[in-house]
């Protein structure tokens, strides 16, 4: 398709809203504008950009209220491609813009000036594919060590190991040099650099934040990632579809069931397999339980970060009760691999419903207790109120999702707005929104979400009807060639899966758009001019899981 001609190939009749968007896209000099079938591909509009039209298109989309979903790279072999996904919060219409480059001259303009959230995505694509984003202010490795000289997700890379050079036992000096530019003030004798992590109790895994501080005041900070990068996306290209499922557990280990579900939803969209009604109800019940257990860990560790030990002990005890049910139902406490294509892997045990009901009764008594213990605690309020305010516009630019977004007053929940399970449409529940956008609002959202989850579980239990728990599917199934996207709502936000299938039993490319990635990125912009202790509060309130970011 040549870049100059603007083709509008319509397979489906557009609605008025879609027509409006089509007009917008056609006015942007994009090529290959197409309406695509959302239920099959997870994308509404397709377009192709080149380096001239890309920034203009991005800024037009931003002006029309679109948020940046994610940026990913694909090695077309030959030729590289960067794929940009945009989505407005108000109406469901995902726009995909592709930009193709040659591998030997992989240059694209940066869109960080338009969407600040593009920063890390571009760095990741640069890491993995070697596409250079011109104009990006610090295009340094994000996930890979600074001494790597290859691009692992290119197809011509075959897993030769990273070799650590002799002289890098020390934490590299280069980082410090770059960090010097962070703070706004001139370097005086009073400011210095503070390494928070990689081993730090409040970074929840191995995150390193290099803080530029002057006394107690933080002038700036930069996150260093990749300390638990495990190369899952490369591994996925060598594994059959069914074999990838266990890796999804290990990305977000606080809510593996929601990740299993996301992956199953992707494959169901790609293959057209439908899960059974019984399975859907089990999924909702157990998926919402996972959400509660994840929020409990958040509450416990957040309080631990703020200096309160008791809630941690309470929360983990409650979580153990949930894990006991998980273990009986799925066979594992954490790495469940339970929700599979077409349903669930095995039926729930007899007495599951009663066990969950008991759990609900118990949790209903516990949640008010947490409210009294934590949410009305004066110290807690002082540490969180007005700290780390994220505005709605900032959240949109950064691509933030989940409770963090809803804490900033944006009413957006994929369970309602991009239904991947019919039950969520039928059950009665509310999307929790708070307006203030500070740490307190985010905490309130999660606390109230637990309540809503309990309601959902209760209703879902009644919907567990007789019938097969899993649709009949071939053991080693193939996915027809094509590109599919599917997004589900995890406890931390939108878990998006982008699959490029080539018709074989293994994916050509599988990209996971993890919610913590933009959610952590927003932290970087919140910490300037806060106190060192606030950094801990902000980080805790955002609730990130580092191995999910690093993958």
């Amino acid at each position, binding site marked *: 398709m040549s870049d100059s001609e603007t083709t509008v190939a319509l397979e489906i009749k557009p609605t008025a809203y879609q027509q409006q968007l089509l007009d917008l896209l056609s006015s942007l000099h994009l090529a290959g504008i197409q309406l695509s079938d959302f239920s099959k591909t997870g994308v509404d509009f397709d377009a192709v950009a080149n380096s001239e039209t890309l920034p203009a298109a991005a800024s037009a989309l931003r002006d029309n209220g679109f948020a940046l979903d994610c940026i990913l790279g694909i090695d077309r072999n030959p030729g590289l491609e960067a794929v940009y996904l945009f989505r407005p919060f108000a109406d469901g219409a995902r726009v995909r813009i592709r930009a193709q480059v040659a591998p030997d001259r992989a240059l694209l303009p940066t869109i960080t000036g338009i969407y600040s959230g593009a920063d890390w995505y571009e760095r990741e694509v640069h890491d993995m594919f070697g596409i250079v984003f011109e104009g990006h202010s610090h295009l340094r490795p994000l996930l*890979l*060590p600074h001494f790597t000289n*290859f691009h*692992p997700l290119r197809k011509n*890379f*075959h*897993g*030769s*190991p*990273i*070799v*650590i*050079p*002799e002289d*890098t*036992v*020390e*934490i590299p000096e280069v980082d410090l040099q770059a960090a010097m530019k962070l703070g706004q003030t001139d370097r005086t004798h009073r400011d210095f650099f503070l390494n928070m992590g*990689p*081993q*730090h*109790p409040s970074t929840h*895994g*191995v995150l390193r934040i290099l803080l530029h501080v002057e006394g107690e005041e933080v002038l700036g900070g930069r996150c260093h990632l*990749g*300390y*638990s*990068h*495990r*190369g*899952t996306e*490369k*591994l996925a*290209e*060598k594994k059959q579809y069914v074999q990838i499922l*266990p*890796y999804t*557990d*290990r990305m977000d*280990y*606080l809510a593996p069931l929601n990740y299993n579900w996301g992956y199953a939803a992707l494959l169901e969209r790609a293959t057209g397999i439908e899960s059974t009604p019984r399975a859907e109800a089990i999924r909702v019940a157990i998926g919402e339980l996972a959400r509660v257990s994840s929020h409990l*860990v958040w509450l*416990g*560790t957040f309080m631990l970060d703020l200096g309160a030990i008791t809630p*941690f*002990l*309470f929360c*983990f*005890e409650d*979580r*153990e009760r949930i*894990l006991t049910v998980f273990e009986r139902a799925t066979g594992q*406490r*954490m*790495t469940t691999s339970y929700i599979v294509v077409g349903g669930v892997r095995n039926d729930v045990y007899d007495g599951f419903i009663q066990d969950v009901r008991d759990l609900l009764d118990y949790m209903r008594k516990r949640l008010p207790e947490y409210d009294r213990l934590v949410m009305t605690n004066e110290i807690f309020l002082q540490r969180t109120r007005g700290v780390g305010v994220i505005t709605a516009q900032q959240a949109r630019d950064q691509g933030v999702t989940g409770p963090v977004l809803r804490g900033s007053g944006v009413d957006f929940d994929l369970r309602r707005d991009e239904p991947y399970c019919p039950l969520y449409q039928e059950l009665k529940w509310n999307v929790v929104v708070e307006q203030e956008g500070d740490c307190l609002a985010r905490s309130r959202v999660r606390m109230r979400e637990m309540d809503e989850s309990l309601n959902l579980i209760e209703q879902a239990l009644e919907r567990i009807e007789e019938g097969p728990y899993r649709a009949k599917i071939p053991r080693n199934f193939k996915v027809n060639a094509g590109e599919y996207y599917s997004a589900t709502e995890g406890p931390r936000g939108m878990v998006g899966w982008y699959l490029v299938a080539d018709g074989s039993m293994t994916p050509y490319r599988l990209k996971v758009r993890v919610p913590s990635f933009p959610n952590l990125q927003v932290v970087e912009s919140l910490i300037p001019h806060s106190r060192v202790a606030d950094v801990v509060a902000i980080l805790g309130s955002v609730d990130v899981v580092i*191995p999910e970011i690093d993958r």
Partner: protein
Amino acid sequence: MSDEHRSLPVMQPDSGHTDEGQIPPIVRFLPLQKALDLARANSLWPLTFGIACCAIEMMAASASRYDTDRFGAGVFRNSPRQADLMIVAGTVNMKMAPIIRRLYDQMPAPKYVIALGSCAICGGPFDQDENYAVVQGVDKVVPVDIFVPGCPPRPEALINAILELQERIKSGQTHSSRV
């Protein structure tokens, strides 16, 4: 997988504190040593240090239901300088390996290491042909006393490992006590 992947150039296991190069003490006070070992075994101070999924099970083990405090190993320290037990809970990759070595070096001797989970033992589910990032076992980086299999191991397994480690400390069979 090539051999070069299996050995990291800069970090030989056991370098520094334990093996050659150190002159064994000329006079030993065995009863005193035994008493010290007994004390050490019963008050292990682990380092708060989790890398991935297994770390959550480590937290669960230290929380209310499993409570490693019952075995004297519940005082999680945030600074390596105050800890004598490193529980490597999670996947170690090439970017992390130098830091683990550094943390280990910062801990005062005698010090003990538990490798929790298959990732810390051998790279676990990520030890695959195409993987470029994951170190095949933390024993390439620091000397490990106890290996706990599982993905993730249950908290009981960690408790068992702590008990086993205590036995070894008392009988002088750890890397640190073999001077």
